[in-house]
């Protein structure tokens, strides 16, 4: 993290709903200007964490600070929020709806109207300006709400499942928008259960499973939790070279797969050559975030997110 200031911080956040613990001692730190992804399956407690961080609900215990303030609503003007349940007044014209979201965050209405038209123009949706929200499709309304989230030029943007309900093109546009905001120095926090988005966008991730933050750190650090994977094909089926493979090595479709031993690639190569393996192909792959997520959150969490087929499906 280096010298970067902290944009958002949570310490031991806990939330109980009617005696049931939804969030259990979550701590996280979001550096200024970073893109931080909060990963976890549905019901893991991501939204509740975000709502506590934003001050929509108070935690049962623990503390949080947003842009240096213990009371998040005091810095509401500098925060943009896209909730998971998108909410706009159906009868409001689109440009008014965007301006209204800005006005809620302290942007004068006149300036908000001007910026709303500009944002719609920049997004190529000028023709939506006067259309009531009820006439827009779900994806269009989501775009409108996203524009309302950034209209007041916040320092921190919190997006709860922003990719849900968007088609591939709009997902790409949203990824670009997040990158642009971060490039402009805006801190972005978003929750998702799609690891690919986090892998492409985030420099930091928080993995939440069953209400607990099981990992918090850089994406590379998460990947670093796993050793690189060796993929090996040999001409020889058996021989002394087999002693160089770790006990966990698996043969999948004629290819050996195993974690690179701690001693590194050189002793492995030497043992394989000296043992007469007859190396056909050998590659060493760095594990992806997907593998790291499974290793950290467990297969059950990954299955809930749809990233690991269950036994039945695999069969």
């Amino acid at each position: 993290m280096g010298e970067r200031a902290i944009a958002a911080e949570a310490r031991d956040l806990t939330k109980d709903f009617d005696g049931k613990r939804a969030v259990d001692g979550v701590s996280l730190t979001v550096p200024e200007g970073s893109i931080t992804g909060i990963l976890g399956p549905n019901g893991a407690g991501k939204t509740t964490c975000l709502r506590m961080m934003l001050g929509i609900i108070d935690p049962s215990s623990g503390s949080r600070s947003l842009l240096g303030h213990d009371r998040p609503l005091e810095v509401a003007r500098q925060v943009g929020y896209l909730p998971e349940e998108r909410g706009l007044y159906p009868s409001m014209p689109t440009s008014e709806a965007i301006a209204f979201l800005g006005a809620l965050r302290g942007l004068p209405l006149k300036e908000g109207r001007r910026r709303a038209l500009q944002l719609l123009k920049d997004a190529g949706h000028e023709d939506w300006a006067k259309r009531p929200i009820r006439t827009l499709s779900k994806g269009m309304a989501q775009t409108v709400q996203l524009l309302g989230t950034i209209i007041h030029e916040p320092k921190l943007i919190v997006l709860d499942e922003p990719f849900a309900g968007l088609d591939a093109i709009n997902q790409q546009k949203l990824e670009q928008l997040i990158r642009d905001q971060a490039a402009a120095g805006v801190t972005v926090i978003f929750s998702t259960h799609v690891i690919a988005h986090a892998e492409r966008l985030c420099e930091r991730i928080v993995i939440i499973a069953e209400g607990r933050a099981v990992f918090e750190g850089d994406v590379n650090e998460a990947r670093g939790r796993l050793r690189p994977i060796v993929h090996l094909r040999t001409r020889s089926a058996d021989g002394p070279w087999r002693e160089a493979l770790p006990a966990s090595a698996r043969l999948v479709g004629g290819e050996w797969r195993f974690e690179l031993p701690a001693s590194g690639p050189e002793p492995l190569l030497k043992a394989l050559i000296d043992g007469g393996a007859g190396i056909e192909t050998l590659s060493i792959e760095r594990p992806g975030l997907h593998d790291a997520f499974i290793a950290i959150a467990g297969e059950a969490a990954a299955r809930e997110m749809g990233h690991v087929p269950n036994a039945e499906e695999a069969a």
Partner: protein
Amino acid sequence: MKLPETIRAAFVIARRDFSATVLSKTFLFFLIGPLFPLAIGFGFVGIGAQVDRSSKPPPVAVIASDQDFGRLAAARERLEPLSDAVPLVELRHVAAEPDLAAQRSRLLSDNSRPVIAVLDGGLTFPHLTGAVTSKGRTARQIGLYVDEARRMAVERPSLGSPLYLTPTASTSGLEAFARNLTARFGQTLLFVLTIMLAGMVLSQLIEEKSSKVIEVLAAAVPVNAIFLGKLFAMLATSLVGIAFWAAIAASLIDLLKEGGLAALATPAVGWPAFLGFALLYFSMSYLLIGATFLGIGAQASTAREVQILSMPVTMGQLLLFGFAAVGVGEPMGAPAIAAAIFPLSSPFAMIARAAEQPALWPHLVAVVWQALWVALILKVAAAVFRRSVLKSGRSRGWKRFFRRAEGVEQLMVP
């Protein structure tokens, strides 16, 4: 969040709500809605007058000498000033025929000139025959005519002068009575407007809940500001309605000058101050009752639940009105002071006081007192909303009392 920021946020929400309401097509129905009962009322008054004119009871046929009938007619004329709204039974003279029984029977069955009864026997042996009872209006009035006619027959005309009248502008008794009427009028007007308009806030958060906007609002501004904004938006909407209805009413008042509103006594504080207080106390009453309703209505998640809540809420308003009405006529009495102190009935009690007592300082105290309660009720309503609907804050034992509907739980809890 600091107060100016809360007020700014409340203004943003109030402006949205106000324009969304006033610029909607349904607002026209809101404006003309209360005029329907008025129009129907006027229609019924007209029909009633018509019916009244055409339903005057038939006269009593009097078989008597000219002298006796003259005395009876004179007696009726003397008694007539005692009867204001209900006319006295009319008499029709019929000359006596030889066969009295046959004449009586013929008169009672004559459809061309119907009579309700037949009086014969003169003043000495008066005998009334017809569809009447001894305690009915016709028999009682005919009895009075006969008594008065007999008295007039034996008494000499009075030697004294007729009643000499010196009218004065007013007397204390008349003024107290008239101000009492003004107080009741002011109180009733305030109550009718409040009951008609404050109920609207019950459903104020339904739109936000159903369109999920509440999450966006709650993330940007405090719940206090949301409630305050909604309350003032509805107050402003109501005042637009009142201005419209007042304009319509002004022309009606003009029509009703005789015996209508113009007949009300000048209130103790004077008309300009009284009308100012009426507006002020309507606003305070609206804010007080509206804040309570907003808190109650915020627990509902559907229009059906709001409808269910409406009945007890209306009953509650009636009770408040009844409580405040007890004190009218005795502004320094315990009931009037209690009603002025109890925050929800205070505006009703104070508008009556404005009609009856000239002192202005109690109104200043009352308005400050009522404003404090508006703030307190809003604060409590917002806290209950945060705890029960947003499921925010640390657990409290009593929160189960405010547990919201299952639908809202599904809506708000991730």
